[in-house]
């Protein structure tokens, strides 16, 4: 029977036939944790009686969440993670050289087409942008992979998502995945995989694909995948850390259903509190004053995101009542943004620029919200209390809407700030 992309990958990594709904054991190509999830993983690893990770070149720890260490307890966790990585000889990159795991690991060529990637972080699904089966797990599951080099999976059914039409200039990956969320909701793909296709997809740059795959988990999905194409391979050629064998969906594969997103004529979208599926056009958000704008995260902290924010902020000022925080998602992105003059633009506009970290996205540090405050954020979740006080609010958007809102002091569509663009 013809295979979906997920089945095509799993069939190469498992001794069993990956029939949908069946449980299978599969070899894992790369497995990582961060400074929060490493600690319980290390404890479980020890309790398992494991001594060595299955392959130190395929196991990693990335200090990205509460780093640079936000307090003593966070520093202790980061230290434990660092010491374990050194003891095991695993991949580890120190602050100043690292980035948010889901931006940094693809850059370093550790997420590759046809591979199975497990990370102790839900946004591990970002790796699906490169045609990997990449999924988030908890710390004990990750410890089991470190110990055994394999995992168990329930083979998901797949929903095919087709982006069709002509993409307007101000529409990016974030708008496309928010459109999917508005159609299928926060559990529309629970226990399933998403496979992205369609004429818009074929022309979509990697950064937009990362954003889309990143938020697959917000639909409940186990993974969100793009079949590798020329764009994927061109992007990977200078980066791949290992040889790899891409997998492709087969003609005639059976999909649980198809969701078509008509992109022509779309205007930028936002997700209003407190659900990523509470989506409407930014133009229809109504008068929503904002206290803070955050441009960054594993969702939208890449170079093209910063470029779009710079397009809005060039020669303009952040509204006097707004704190605008910009955090490039990796060291490489930070360096490129500096070289291209984006950082100058942000600082001239009155924004804060910080070193790569997850920071405020999960309410860790570097921009926590007080009671009653509202933030427009390019991150991925706007749950109650996500970025601070339980009575604060997060509005999710792409970088154009976020930067426009920073200038306007309220949720704004880019056309309101860039009238002649």
């Amino acid at each position, binding site marked *: 029977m013809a295979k979906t992309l997920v089945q095509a990958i799993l069939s190469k990594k498992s001794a069993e036939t990956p029939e949908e709904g069946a*449980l299978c054991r599969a070899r894992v190509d790369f497995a990582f944790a961060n400074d*929060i*999830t490493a*600690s*319980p993983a290390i*404890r*479980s690893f020890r*309790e*398992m*009686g*494991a001594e060595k990770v299955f392959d130190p070149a395929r196991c990693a720890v990335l200090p990205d*969440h*509460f780093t640079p260490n936000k*307090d003593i*307890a*966070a520093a*202790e*966790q980061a230290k434990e993670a660092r010491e374990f990585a050194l003891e095991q000889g695993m991949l580890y990159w120190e602050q100043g050289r690292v980035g948010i795991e889901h931006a940094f690991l693809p850059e370093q060529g550790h997420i590759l087409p046809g591979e199975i990637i497990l*990370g*102790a*972080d*839900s946004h*591990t699904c970002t790796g699906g942008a490169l045609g990997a089966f990449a999924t*988030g*797990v*908890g*710390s*004990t*599951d990750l*410890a*089991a992979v470190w*110990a*055994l080099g394999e995992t*168990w999976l*329930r083979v998901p059914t797949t929903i095919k998502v087709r982006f069709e039409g002509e993409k307007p200039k101000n529409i990016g990956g974030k708008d496309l995945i928010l459109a999917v969320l508005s159609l299928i909701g*926060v*559990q529309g793909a*629970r*226990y399933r995989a998403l496979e992205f296709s369609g004429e818009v997809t074929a022309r979509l740059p990697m950064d937009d694909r990362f954003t889309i795959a990143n938020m697959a988990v917000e639909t*409940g999905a*186990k993974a969100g995948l793009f079949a590798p194409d020329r764009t994927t391979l061109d992007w990977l050629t200078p980066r791949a850390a290992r040889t790899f064998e891409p997998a492709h969906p087969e003609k005639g594969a059976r999909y649980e259903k198809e969701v078509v997103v008509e992109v022509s004529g779309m205007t930028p979208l936002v997700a209003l509190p407190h*659900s990523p599926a509470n989506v409407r056009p930014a133009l229809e958000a109504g008068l929503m004053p904002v206290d803070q704008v955050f441009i960054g995260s594993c969702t939208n902290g890449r170079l093209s995101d910063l470029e779009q924010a710079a397009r809005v902020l060039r020669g303009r000022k952040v509204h006097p009542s707004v704190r605008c925080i910009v955090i490039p998602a990796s060291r490489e992105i930070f360096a490129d943004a500096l070289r291209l003059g984006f950082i100058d633009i942000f600082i001239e506009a009155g924004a804060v620029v910080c070193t790569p970290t997850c920071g405020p996205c*999960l*309410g*860790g540090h570097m921009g*926590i919200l007080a009671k009653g405050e509202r933030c427009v954020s390019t991150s991925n*979740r706007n*749950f*109650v*209390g*996500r970025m601070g006080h*339980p009575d604060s609010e997060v509005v999710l958007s792409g970088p154009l809407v976020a930067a426009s809102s920073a200038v306007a002091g309220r949720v704004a569509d880019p056309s309101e700030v860039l009238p002649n663009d």
Partner: protein
Amino acid sequence: MTRIIRGKAWVFGNDVDTDVIIPARYLVTSDPERLGEHCMEGLDPAFPAKVAPGDFIVAGDNFGCGSSREHAPLALKGAGCGGVIAASFARIFFRNAINVGLPIFECPEAAGTIAAGDLLEVDPSSGTITITGSGRVFHFAPFPTFIEGLVAAGGLIPFVRRELEGRRAR
């Protein structure tokens, strides 16, 4: 997991996410008891003080959606929660709960019927949830065989330990 669990129901809605189960600002420890002090704080700040050992969380669809933090089932365990009954679970939370030994029961009928404060009795071996007051009984389906095996082994940790011992012996 054969022990009968008895406790009171604390009822929540759909899509209870891991940020409200345990906000990220508390993830500077993975000690269940310390995490338990802030459990469900995002929805009910008084919950950790009110919940008694064995009490159940009862919720709608997609319980535990969001982050992969294993701290979420650990916080529920640390708060003394006897288990979670939900119409459905988000997939990472489901795995994490099995792995750390937090009892979870997927039963849409029970989740839709149980009212806040109901006294419940859950018998994992017979697959039944009983509302003590009315005597109403709900049945939940057993896990797939492999997952039952994980539960019976005491969770993923002993399962992997056995696997590693087997590999060393070979």
